[in-house]
Protein backbone atom coordinates (compact mmCIF):
# COMPACT_ATOMS: atom_id res chain seq x y z
CA UNK A 1 0.00 0.00 0.00
CA UNK A 2 0.92 3.61 -0.14
CA UNK A 3 3.77 3.60 2.33
CA UNK A 4 5.04 7.15 1.91
CA UNK A 5 3.16 10.39 2.16
CA UNK A 6 2.84 12.53 -0.88
CA UNK A 7 5.63 15.04 -1.14
CA UNK A 8 4.22 18.27 0.17
CA UNK A 9 4.40 20.76 -2.68
CA UNK A 10 5.79 24.01 -1.32
CA UNK A 11 8.65 25.05 -3.52
CA UNK A 12 8.06 27.82 -6.02
CA UNK A 13 8.73 27.15 -9.66
CA UNK A 14 12.41 27.71 -10.46
CA UNK A 15 13.26 30.04 -13.34
CA UNK A 16 13.47 28.42 -16.70
CA UNK A 17 17.04 27.95 -17.89
CA UNK A 18 17.59 30.39 -20.74
CA UNK A 19 17.42 28.75 -24.17
CA UNK A 20 20.38 30.33 -25.95
CA UNK A 21 20.29 27.81 -28.75
CA UNK A 22 16.69 28.55 -29.67
CA UNK A 23 17.27 32.30 -29.57
CA UNK A 24 20.33 32.10 -31.81
CA UNK A 25 18.57 29.85 -34.33
CA UNK A 26 15.56 32.17 -34.41
CA UNK A 27 17.73 35.25 -34.95
CA UNK A 28 19.70 33.45 -37.68
CA UNK A 29 16.49 32.39 -39.40
CA UNK A 30 15.03 35.91 -39.39
CA UNK A 31 18.34 37.41 -40.52
CA UNK A 32 18.54 34.79 -43.28
CA UNK A 33 15.04 35.56 -44.52
CA UNK A 34 15.63 39.33 -44.50
CA UNK A 35 19.00 38.99 -46.22
CA UNK A 36 17.64 36.58 -48.87
CA UNK A 37 14.67 38.80 -49.54
CA UNK A 38 16.98 41.80 -50.04
CA UNK A 39 19.47 39.85 -52.13
CA UNK A 40 16.78 38.63 -54.54
CA UNK A 41 14.71 41.85 -54.56
CA UNK A 42 11.60 40.05 -53.38
CA UNK A 43 8.68 42.33 -54.11
CA UNK A 44 5.42 40.55 -53.46
CA UNK A 45 3.20 43.59 -54.19
CA UNK A 46 4.88 43.89 -57.61
CA UNK A 47 4.11 40.24 -58.25
CA UNK A 48 0.45 40.77 -57.50
CA UNK A 49 0.41 43.99 -59.52
CA UNK A 50 1.70 42.06 -62.54
CA UNK A 51 -0.33 39.00 -61.79
CA UNK A 52 -2.51 39.60 -64.86
CA UNK A 53 0.59 38.95 -67.03
CA UNK A 54 0.96 35.59 -65.35
CA UNK A 55 -2.73 34.88 -65.75
CA UNK A 56 -2.59 35.82 -69.45
CA UNK A 57 -0.10 33.04 -70.02
CA UNK A 58 -2.16 30.77 -67.86
CA UNK A 59 -5.25 31.57 -69.95
CA UNK A 60 -3.41 30.66 -73.14
CA UNK A 61 -2.34 27.41 -71.52
CA UNK A 62 -5.94 26.69 -70.66
CA UNK A 63 -6.80 26.41 -74.37
CA UNK A 64 -4.23 23.87 -75.57
CA UNK A 65 -3.43 23.40 -79.25
CA UNK A 66 -4.66 19.81 -79.50
CA UNK A 67 -3.58 19.53 -83.15
CA UNK A 68 0.02 19.70 -81.94
CA UNK A 69 -0.33 16.44 -80.03
CA UNK A 70 0.71 14.26 -82.96
CA UNK A 71 3.98 16.20 -83.31
CA UNK A 72 5.08 15.56 -79.75
CA UNK A 73 4.63 11.79 -79.75
CA UNK A 74 7.92 11.03 -81.48
CA UNK A 75 10.08 13.29 -79.24
CA UNK A 76 8.22 11.90 -76.25
CA UNK A 77 9.20 8.36 -77.18
CA UNK A 78 12.75 9.55 -77.71
CA UNK A 79 12.64 11.03 -74.21
CA UNK A 80 11.51 7.75 -72.66
CA UNK A 81 14.22 5.86 -74.55
CA UNK A 82 16.80 8.33 -73.32
CA UNK A 83 15.61 7.75 -69.79
CA UNK A 84 15.72 3.95 -70.15
CA UNK A 85 19.20 3.89 -71.67
CA UNK A 86 20.61 6.47 -69.28
CA UNK A 87 19.16 4.67 -66.26
CA UNK A 88 20.40 1.28 -67.44
CA UNK A 89 23.96 2.42 -68.07
CA UNK A 90 24.12 4.48 -64.88
CA UNK A 91 22.72 1.70 -62.71
CA UNK A 92 24.98 -0.96 -64.22
CA UNK A 93 28.07 1.12 -63.44
CA UNK A 94 26.72 2.05 -60.01
CA UNK A 95 26.23 -1.55 -58.86
CA UNK A 96 29.88 -2.68 -58.75
CA UNK A 97 30.93 0.79 -57.63
CA UNK A 98 28.58 0.56 -54.64
CA UNK A 99 30.39 -2.59 -53.46
CA UNK A 100 33.71 -0.76 -53.72
CA UNK A 101 32.54 2.02 -51.39
CA UNK A 102 30.84 -0.23 -48.83
CA UNK A 103 32.91 -0.39 -45.67
CA UNK A 104 31.70 -3.87 -44.79
CA UNK A 105 33.07 -5.22 -48.11
CA UNK A 106 36.21 -3.13 -48.61
CA UNK A 107 38.06 -2.63 -45.36
CA UNK A 108 40.55 -0.16 -46.81
CA UNK A 109 39.29 3.20 -45.54
CA UNK A 110 41.51 5.10 -47.97
CA UNK A 111 39.96 3.44 -51.04
CA UNK A 112 36.37 3.82 -49.85
CA UNK A 113 37.07 7.40 -48.78
CA UNK A 114 38.37 8.51 -52.19
CA UNK A 115 35.69 6.67 -54.15
CA UNK A 116 32.96 8.08 -51.93
CA UNK A 117 34.35 11.56 -52.36
CA UNK A 118 34.04 11.18 -56.14
CA UNK A 119 30.48 9.88 -55.82
CA UNK A 120 29.52 12.80 -53.60
CA UNK A 121 30.96 15.37 -55.98
CA UNK A 122 29.02 13.88 -58.87
CA UNK A 123 25.85 14.08 -56.81
CA UNK A 124 26.24 17.81 -56.22
CA UNK A 125 26.05 18.93 -59.87
CA UNK A 126 22.48 19.64 -61.02
CA UNK A 127 21.33 17.57 -64.01
CA UNK A 128 20.58 20.46 -66.35
CA UNK A 129 24.05 21.93 -65.87
CA UNK A 130 25.61 18.56 -66.68
CA UNK A 131 23.44 18.44 -69.79
CA UNK A 132 24.56 21.92 -70.89
CA UNK A 133 28.15 20.81 -70.44
CA UNK A 134 27.74 17.58 -72.43
CA UNK A 135 25.91 19.37 -75.21
CA UNK A 136 29.02 21.50 -75.53
CA UNK A 137 31.21 18.39 -75.63
CA UNK A 138 29.35 15.87 -77.80
CA UNK A 139 27.01 18.23 -79.62
CA UNK A 140 23.27 18.81 -79.68
CA UNK A 141 21.20 15.63 -79.56
CA UNK A 142 20.03 12.79 -77.34
CA UNK A 143 23.53 11.46 -76.69
CA UNK A 144 24.28 14.39 -74.40
CA UNK A 145 21.02 13.65 -72.59
CA UNK A 146 21.85 9.97 -72.21
CA UNK A 147 25.29 10.71 -70.79
CA UNK A 148 23.78 13.22 -68.37
CA UNK A 149 21.12 10.79 -67.18
CA UNK A 150 23.68 8.00 -66.85
CA UNK A 151 25.90 10.13 -64.63
CA UNK A 152 22.92 11.41 -62.66
CA UNK A 153 21.68 7.83 -62.14
CA UNK A 154 25.15 6.68 -61.18
CA UNK A 155 25.25 9.23 -58.36
CA UNK A 156 21.76 8.48 -57.10
CA UNK A 157 21.71 4.68 -57.37
CA UNK A 158 25.33 4.45 -56.21
CA UNK A 159 24.51 6.16 -52.93
CA UNK A 160 21.21 4.37 -52.29
CA UNK A 161 22.76 1.03 -53.14
CA UNK A 162 25.86 1.29 -50.99
CA UNK A 163 23.68 2.32 -48.06
CA UNK A 164 21.66 -0.86 -48.65
CA UNK A 165 24.84 -2.94 -48.85
CA UNK A 166 26.16 -1.43 -45.61
CA UNK A 167 23.01 -2.23 -43.67
CA UNK A 168 22.75 -5.90 -44.57
CA UNK A 169 22.74 -8.61 -41.95
CA UNK A 170 26.38 -9.45 -41.18
CA UNK A 171 25.50 -12.95 -40.00
CA UNK A 172 25.72 -14.73 -43.37
CA UNK A 173 29.07 -13.03 -44.10
CA UNK A 174 30.42 -14.30 -40.81
CA UNK A 175 29.08 -17.78 -41.51
CA UNK A 176 30.69 -17.93 -44.93
CA UNK A 177 33.97 -16.49 -43.69
CA UNK A 178 33.97 -19.15 -40.97
CA UNK A 179 33.51 -21.88 -43.54
CA UNK A 180 36.52 -20.61 -45.49
CA UNK A 181 34.96 -18.63 -48.33
CA UNK A 182 36.99 -16.04 -50.20
CA UNK A 183 35.91 -12.46 -50.92
CA UNK A 184 34.15 -13.28 -54.22
CA UNK A 185 32.25 -16.16 -52.72
CA UNK A 186 31.16 -14.00 -49.81
CA UNK A 187 29.83 -11.31 -52.12
CA UNK A 188 28.14 -13.89 -54.33
CA UNK A 189 26.44 -15.95 -51.61
CA UNK A 190 26.10 -13.64 -48.62
CA UNK A 191 25.75 -10.12 -49.99
CA UNK A 192 24.09 -10.25 -53.41
CA UNK A 193 21.12 -12.38 -52.30
CA UNK A 194 20.40 -9.79 -49.62
CA UNK A 195 20.58 -6.72 -51.83
CA UNK A 196 19.45 -7.80 -55.30
CA UNK A 197 15.83 -6.83 -54.73
CA UNK A 198 16.93 -3.39 -53.52
CA UNK A 199 18.87 -2.94 -56.71
CA UNK A 200 15.84 -3.59 -58.89
CA UNK A 201 13.78 -1.26 -56.76
CA UNK A 202 16.33 1.56 -56.98
CA UNK A 203 16.66 1.03 -60.72
CA UNK A 204 12.95 1.58 -61.20
CA UNK A 205 12.93 4.50 -58.76
CA UNK A 206 15.76 6.16 -60.69
CA UNK A 207 13.86 5.51 -63.89
CA UNK A 208 10.84 7.39 -62.56
CA UNK A 209 12.98 10.36 -61.59
CA UNK A 210 14.84 10.28 -64.89
CA UNK A 211 11.66 10.38 -66.95
CA UNK A 212 10.76 13.62 -65.17
CA UNK A 213 14.27 15.02 -65.54
CA UNK A 214 14.66 14.01 -69.19
CA UNK A 215 11.65 16.07 -70.26
CA UNK A 216 13.51 19.34 -69.68
CA UNK A 217 17.04 18.29 -70.73
CA UNK A 218 16.14 19.20 -74.31
CA UNK A 219 15.87 22.79 -73.22
CA UNK A 220 19.66 23.05 -73.40
CA UNK A 221 19.79 20.86 -76.52
CA UNK A 222 20.13 17.41 -74.98
CA UNK A 223 17.33 15.75 -76.99
CA UNK A 224 13.81 14.62 -76.33
CA UNK A 225 10.62 16.60 -75.88
CA UNK A 226 12.47 19.42 -74.14
CA UNK A 227 13.73 20.63 -77.53
CA UNK A 228 10.15 21.21 -78.63
CA UNK A 229 9.32 22.73 -75.29
CA UNK A 230 12.10 25.25 -75.73
CA UNK A 231 10.93 26.12 -79.26
CA UNK A 232 7.34 26.65 -78.15
CA UNK A 233 8.46 28.79 -75.22
CA UNK A 234 10.71 30.83 -77.51
CA UNK A 235 7.78 31.49 -79.85
CA UNK A 236 5.46 32.25 -76.92
CA UNK A 237 3.20 29.41 -78.09
CA UNK A 238 1.83 28.65 -74.64
CA UNK A 239 -1.03 26.67 -76.14
CA UNK A 240 1.63 24.20 -77.35
CA UNK A 241 3.56 24.38 -74.08
CA UNK A 242 0.47 23.27 -72.23
CA UNK A 243 -0.02 20.31 -74.57
CA UNK A 244 3.49 19.16 -73.76
CA UNK A 245 3.04 19.72 -70.06
CA UNK A 246 -0.16 17.66 -70.16
CA UNK A 247 1.43 14.87 -72.16
CA UNK A 248 4.42 14.79 -69.83
CA UNK A 249 2.09 14.66 -66.84
CA UNK A 250 0.15 11.75 -68.33
CA UNK A 251 3.33 9.83 -69.13
CA UNK A 252 4.77 10.45 -65.68
CA UNK A 253 1.56 9.21 -64.03
CA UNK A 254 1.50 6.06 -66.16
CA UNK A 255 5.20 5.32 -65.65
CA UNK A 256 5.01 5.93 -61.90
CA UNK A 257 2.09 3.53 -61.68
CA UNK A 258 3.66 0.81 -63.82
CA UNK A 259 6.96 1.16 -62.00
CA UNK A 260 5.26 0.95 -58.61
CA UNK A 261 3.42 -2.24 -59.61
CA UNK A 262 6.60 -3.76 -61.03
CA UNK A 263 8.46 -2.98 -57.85
CA UNK A 264 5.71 -4.57 -55.76
CA UNK A 265 5.90 -7.77 -57.80
CA UNK A 266 9.69 -7.96 -57.80
CA UNK A 267 10.35 -7.05 -54.16
Amino acid at each position, binding site marked *: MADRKMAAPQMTLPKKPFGWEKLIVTILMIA*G*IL*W*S*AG*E*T*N*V*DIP*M*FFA*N*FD*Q*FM*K*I*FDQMMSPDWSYTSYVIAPL*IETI*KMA*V*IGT*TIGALVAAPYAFLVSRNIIQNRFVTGILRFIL*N*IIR*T*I*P*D*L*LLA*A*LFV*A*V*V*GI*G*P*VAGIITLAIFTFGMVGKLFYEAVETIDEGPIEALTASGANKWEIVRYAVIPQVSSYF*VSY*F*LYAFEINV*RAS*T*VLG*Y*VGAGGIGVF*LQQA*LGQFRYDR*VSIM*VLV*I*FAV*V*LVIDYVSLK*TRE*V*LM
Partner: protein
Amino acid sequence: MDATNKKLPPRERKNEWPKYLAWAFVAALIIWAFVGMPAFAIKPNAGQIGGSIMSGIFHPDWAYVYRGDGEDLVSTLLQTIAIAFIGTFISAIVSLPFAFWAANTKHEFWLVTRSGKFLLTAIRTFPEIVLALMFIKAVGPSAFAGVLAVGFHSVGMLAKLFSEAIENLDNGAGESVTSAGGTRMDVTMLATIPQLLPELISNTLYRFELAIRSASILGIVGAGGIGTPLIFAISARAWSRVGIILLGIVIMVTLVDFISGSIRKKLI
Protein backbone atom coordinates in the same frame (compact mmCIF):
# COMPACT_ATOMS: atom_id res chain seq x y z
CA MET B 1 19.99 -38.63 -36.63
CA ASP B 2 17.38 -40.18 -38.86
CA ALA B 3 18.45 -42.16 -41.83
CA THR B 4 19.01 -39.69 -44.62
CA ASN B 5 18.11 -41.80 -47.56
CA LYS B 6 15.11 -39.91 -48.78
CA LYS B 7 15.40 -38.25 -52.15
CA LEU B 8 15.51 -34.48 -52.41
CA PRO B 9 11.88 -33.50 -52.85
CA PRO B 10 11.12 -31.34 -55.87
CA ARG B 11 10.96 -27.64 -55.13
CA GLU B 12 7.51 -26.43 -54.32
CA ARG B 13 6.49 -23.98 -56.97
CA LYS B 14 4.39 -21.10 -55.90
CA ASN B 15 2.94 -18.94 -58.58
CA GLU B 16 5.95 -17.10 -59.94
CA TRP B 17 4.34 -15.89 -63.13
CA PRO B 18 3.91 -12.23 -62.12
CA LYS B 19 7.60 -12.15 -61.27
CA TYR B 20 8.66 -13.57 -64.65
CA LEU B 21 6.32 -11.16 -66.40
CA ALA B 22 7.79 -8.21 -64.54
CA TRP B 23 11.32 -9.29 -65.43
CA ALA B 24 10.33 -9.79 -69.06
CA PHE B 25 8.77 -6.36 -69.04
CA VAL B 26 11.90 -4.68 -67.71
CA ALA B 27 14.08 -6.57 -70.19
CA ALA B 28 11.79 -5.73 -73.10
CA LEU B 29 11.81 -2.06 -72.12
CA ILE B 30 15.59 -1.95 -72.15
CA ILE B 31 15.90 -3.80 -75.47
CA TRP B 32 13.25 -1.59 -77.04
CA ALA B 33 15.08 1.54 -75.97
CA PHE B 34 18.47 0.41 -77.24
CA VAL B 35 17.26 -1.03 -80.54
CA GLY B 36 15.25 1.97 -81.70
CA MET B 37 17.85 4.54 -80.80
CA PRO B 38 19.61 6.35 -83.62
CA ALA B 39 23.35 5.81 -83.86
CA PHE B 40 25.39 7.44 -81.16
CA ALA B 41 26.36 10.49 -83.15
CA ILE B 42 29.10 12.42 -81.45
CA LYS B 43 30.84 15.54 -82.62
CA PRO B 44 34.20 14.62 -84.19
CA ASN B 45 36.09 17.00 -81.95
CA ALA B 46 34.36 15.81 -78.77
CA GLY B 47 37.58 14.40 -77.36
CA GLN B 48 39.37 17.66 -77.90
CA ILE B 49 36.62 19.71 -76.21
CA GLY B 50 36.42 17.25 -73.36
CA GLY B 51 40.18 17.69 -72.95
CA SER B 52 39.87 21.48 -72.85
CA ILE B 53 37.10 21.25 -70.26
CA MET B 54 39.18 18.96 -68.07
CA SER B 55 42.13 21.29 -68.38
CA GLY B 56 39.79 24.21 -67.56
CA ILE B 57 38.59 22.45 -64.44
CA PHE B 58 42.15 21.86 -63.32
CA HIS B 59 43.21 25.41 -64.19
CA PRO B 60 40.27 27.42 -62.84
CA ASP B 61 39.94 31.14 -63.40
CA TRP B 62 40.74 32.22 -59.86
CA ALA B 63 40.38 35.89 -60.71
CA TYR B 64 36.64 35.34 -61.18
CA VAL B 65 36.11 34.31 -57.57
CA TYR B 66 35.75 37.86 -56.34
CA ARG B 67 35.73 41.04 -58.40
CA GLY B 68 33.35 43.19 -56.41
CA ASP B 69 31.07 43.93 -59.38
CA GLY B 70 28.23 41.73 -58.19
CA GLU B 71 28.63 39.42 -61.21
CA ASP B 72 31.47 37.36 -59.75
CA LEU B 73 31.38 33.82 -58.40
CA VAL B 74 30.87 34.64 -54.72
CA SER B 75 28.05 37.12 -55.43
CA THR B 76 26.15 34.81 -57.77
CA LEU B 77 26.59 31.83 -55.43
CA LEU B 78 25.24 33.89 -52.55
CA GLN B 79 22.34 34.94 -54.73
CA THR B 80 21.69 31.27 -55.53
CA ILE B 81 21.55 30.43 -51.83
CA ALA B 82 19.25 33.40 -51.21
CA ILE B 83 16.86 32.28 -53.97
CA ALA B 84 16.70 28.78 -52.52
CA PHE B 85 16.34 30.04 -48.95
CA ILE B 86 13.53 32.54 -49.40
CA GLY B 87 11.87 30.36 -52.04
CA THR B 88 11.77 27.39 -49.66
CA PHE B 89 10.52 29.61 -46.86
CA ILE B 90 7.63 30.88 -49.00
CA SER B 91 6.83 27.38 -50.14
CA ALA B 92 6.77 26.07 -46.56
CA ILE B 93 4.10 28.61 -45.69
CA VAL B 94 2.07 27.92 -48.83
CA SER B 95 2.41 24.16 -48.28
CA LEU B 96 0.66 24.09 -44.90
CA PRO B 97 -2.94 24.50 -46.10
CA PHE B 98 -2.27 22.17 -49.04
CA ALA B 99 -0.89 19.56 -46.65
CA PHE B 100 -4.02 19.58 -44.51
CA TRP B 101 -6.07 19.33 -47.67
CA ALA B 102 -4.20 16.29 -48.95
CA ALA B 103 -3.66 14.51 -45.62
CA ASN B 104 -5.64 11.32 -45.34
CA THR B 105 -6.98 11.50 -41.81
CA LYS B 106 -10.03 9.61 -40.71
CA HIS B 107 -12.33 12.64 -40.66
CA GLU B 108 -11.69 13.35 -44.30
CA PHE B 109 -13.89 12.44 -47.22
CA TRP B 110 -11.83 10.41 -49.72
CA LEU B 111 -12.48 12.80 -52.65
CA VAL B 112 -10.94 15.70 -50.71
CA THR B 113 -7.74 13.77 -50.08
CA ARG B 114 -7.59 12.36 -53.60
CA SER B 115 -8.04 15.71 -55.30
CA GLY B 116 -5.42 17.28 -53.03
CA LYS B 117 -2.88 14.55 -53.75
CA PHE B 118 -3.60 14.78 -57.48
CA LEU B 119 -3.07 18.53 -57.51
CA LEU B 120 0.26 18.13 -55.69
CA THR B 121 1.41 15.54 -58.22
CA ALA B 122 0.50 17.95 -61.01
CA ILE B 123 2.52 20.74 -59.39
CA ARG B 124 5.50 18.40 -58.93
CA THR B 125 5.44 17.39 -62.58
CA PHE B 126 5.08 20.91 -64.00
CA PRO B 127 8.61 21.66 -65.30
CA GLU B 128 10.30 24.23 -63.10
CA ILE B 129 11.91 25.92 -66.09
CA VAL B 130 8.54 26.57 -67.72
CA LEU B 131 7.31 27.96 -64.44
CA ALA B 132 10.34 30.25 -64.19
CA LEU B 133 9.69 31.58 -67.69
CA MET B 134 6.07 32.28 -66.78
CA PHE B 135 7.15 34.21 -63.71
CA ILE B 136 9.75 36.08 -65.77
CA LYS B 137 6.85 37.31 -67.89
CA ALA B 138 5.23 38.66 -64.76
CA VAL B 139 8.14 40.18 -62.84
CA GLY B 140 10.93 40.46 -65.39
CA PRO B 141 14.14 38.43 -65.73
CA SER B 142 15.38 38.60 -62.14
CA ALA B 143 16.25 36.60 -59.09
CA PHE B 144 12.73 37.31 -57.85
CA ALA B 145 11.34 35.21 -60.72
CA GLY B 146 13.63 32.41 -59.52
CA VAL B 147 12.31 32.79 -55.97
CA LEU B 148 8.73 32.48 -57.22
CA ALA B 149 9.54 29.45 -59.36
CA VAL B 150 11.30 27.66 -56.48
CA GLY B 151 8.58 28.70 -54.05
CA PHE B 152 5.74 27.43 -56.21
CA HIS B 153 7.36 24.27 -57.52
CA SER B 154 8.52 23.16 -54.06
CA VAL B 155 4.94 23.13 -52.82
CA GLY B 156 4.33 19.94 -54.80
CA MET B 157 6.87 17.97 -52.82
CA LEU B 158 6.85 19.82 -49.51
CA ALA B 159 3.09 19.67 -49.07
CA LYS B 160 3.26 15.95 -49.84
CA LEU B 161 5.90 15.42 -47.14
CA PHE B 162 3.92 17.59 -44.72
CA SER B 163 0.72 15.66 -45.38
CA GLU B 164 2.54 12.41 -44.68
CA ALA B 165 3.77 13.85 -41.38
CA ILE B 166 0.19 14.76 -40.53
CA GLU B 167 -1.02 11.29 -41.45
CA ASN B 168 1.59 9.65 -39.23
CA LEU B 169 0.76 11.86 -36.29
CA ASP B 170 -0.01 10.04 -33.05
CA ASN B 171 -3.27 11.58 -31.85
CA GLY B 172 -2.94 10.38 -28.26
CA ALA B 173 -1.71 13.75 -27.05
CA GLY B 174 -4.67 15.38 -28.74
CA GLU B 175 -6.99 12.99 -26.93
CA SER B 176 -5.55 14.06 -23.59
CA VAL B 177 -6.17 17.72 -24.41
CA THR B 178 -9.77 16.87 -25.31
CA SER B 179 -10.24 14.94 -22.10
CA ALA B 180 -9.07 17.99 -20.12
CA GLY B 181 -11.84 20.05 -21.69
CA GLY B 182 -9.98 21.50 -24.67
CA THR B 183 -11.62 22.61 -27.90
CA ARG B 184 -10.54 21.48 -31.38
CA MET B 185 -8.42 24.59 -31.70
CA ASP B 186 -6.77 23.85 -28.34
CA VAL B 187 -5.92 20.38 -29.62
CA THR B 188 -4.30 21.90 -32.70
CA MET B 189 -2.27 24.45 -30.76
CA LEU B 190 -1.22 22.34 -27.78
CA ALA B 191 -0.85 18.88 -29.28
CA THR B 192 -0.82 18.82 -33.08
CA ILE B 193 1.58 21.66 -33.83
CA PRO B 194 4.18 20.94 -31.12
CA GLN B 195 4.36 17.33 -32.34
CA LEU B 196 4.40 18.29 -35.99
CA LEU B 197 6.82 21.19 -35.95
CA PRO B 198 10.18 19.34 -35.78
CA GLU B 199 9.04 17.07 -38.62
CA LEU B 200 7.99 20.06 -40.72
CA ILE B 201 11.27 21.87 -40.14
CA SER B 202 13.21 18.76 -41.07
CA ASN B 203 11.19 18.32 -44.28
CA THR B 204 11.71 21.98 -45.14
CA LEU B 205 15.47 21.68 -44.69
CA TYR B 206 15.54 18.63 -46.94
CA ARG B 207 13.59 20.54 -49.56
CA PHE B 208 16.05 23.43 -49.16
CA GLU B 209 18.91 21.10 -50.12
CA LEU B 210 17.07 20.29 -53.35
CA ALA B 211 16.11 23.93 -53.91
CA ILE B 212 19.81 24.87 -53.96
CA ARG B 213 20.21 22.60 -56.99
CA SER B 214 17.11 24.09 -58.66
CA ALA B 215 18.29 27.62 -58.00
CA SER B 216 21.61 26.80 -59.71
CA ILE B 217 19.72 25.75 -62.83
CA LEU B 218 17.18 28.56 -63.15
CA GLY B 219 19.79 31.06 -64.27
CA ILE B 220 19.80 29.27 -67.62
CA VAL B 221 16.50 30.99 -68.43
CA GLY B 222 17.46 34.24 -66.71
CA ALA B 223 15.93 33.73 -63.29
CA GLY B 224 19.03 34.71 -61.33
CA GLY B 225 21.74 32.73 -59.60
CA ILE B 226 24.87 30.91 -60.72
CA GLY B 227 23.23 29.37 -63.80
CA THR B 228 23.49 32.56 -65.85
CA PRO B 229 27.29 33.02 -65.73
CA LEU B 230 27.74 29.28 -66.23
CA ILE B 231 25.68 29.14 -69.41
CA PHE B 232 27.48 32.27 -70.69
CA ALA B 233 30.88 30.73 -69.95
CA ILE B 234 29.91 27.49 -71.71
CA SER B 235 28.70 29.25 -74.85
CA ALA B 236 31.82 31.45 -74.85
CA ARG B 237 33.94 28.28 -74.41
CA ALA B 238 35.69 29.93 -71.47
CA TRP B 239 36.58 26.60 -69.92
CA SER B 240 38.65 27.89 -67.02
CA ARG B 241 35.66 30.06 -66.10
CA VAL B 242 33.43 26.98 -66.34
CA GLY B 243 35.93 25.17 -64.14
CA ILE B 244 35.82 27.70 -61.33
CA ILE B 245 32.02 27.89 -61.47
CA LEU B 246 31.66 24.10 -61.24
CA LEU B 247 34.08 24.11 -58.34
CA GLY B 248 32.01 26.81 -56.66
CA ILE B 249 28.78 24.86 -57.12
CA VAL B 250 30.31 21.67 -55.74
CA ILE B 251 31.58 23.46 -52.65
CA MET B 252 28.32 25.34 -52.10
CA VAL B 253 26.11 22.27 -52.44
CA THR B 254 28.40 20.19 -50.24
CA LEU B 255 28.44 22.83 -47.51
CA VAL B 256 24.68 23.36 -47.57
CA ASP B 257 24.03 19.59 -47.53
CA PHE B 258 26.38 19.18 -44.60
CA ILE B 259 24.94 22.00 -42.48
CA SER B 260 21.33 21.19 -43.26
CA GLY B 261 21.96 17.48 -42.73
CA SER B 262 23.49 17.98 -39.30
CA ILE B 263 20.59 20.20 -38.19
CA ARG B 264 18.14 17.55 -39.40
CA LYS B 265 19.95 14.85 -37.44
CA LYS B 266 19.66 16.94 -34.29
CA LEU B 267 15.95 17.56 -34.82
CA ILE B 268 14.78 13.98 -35.10
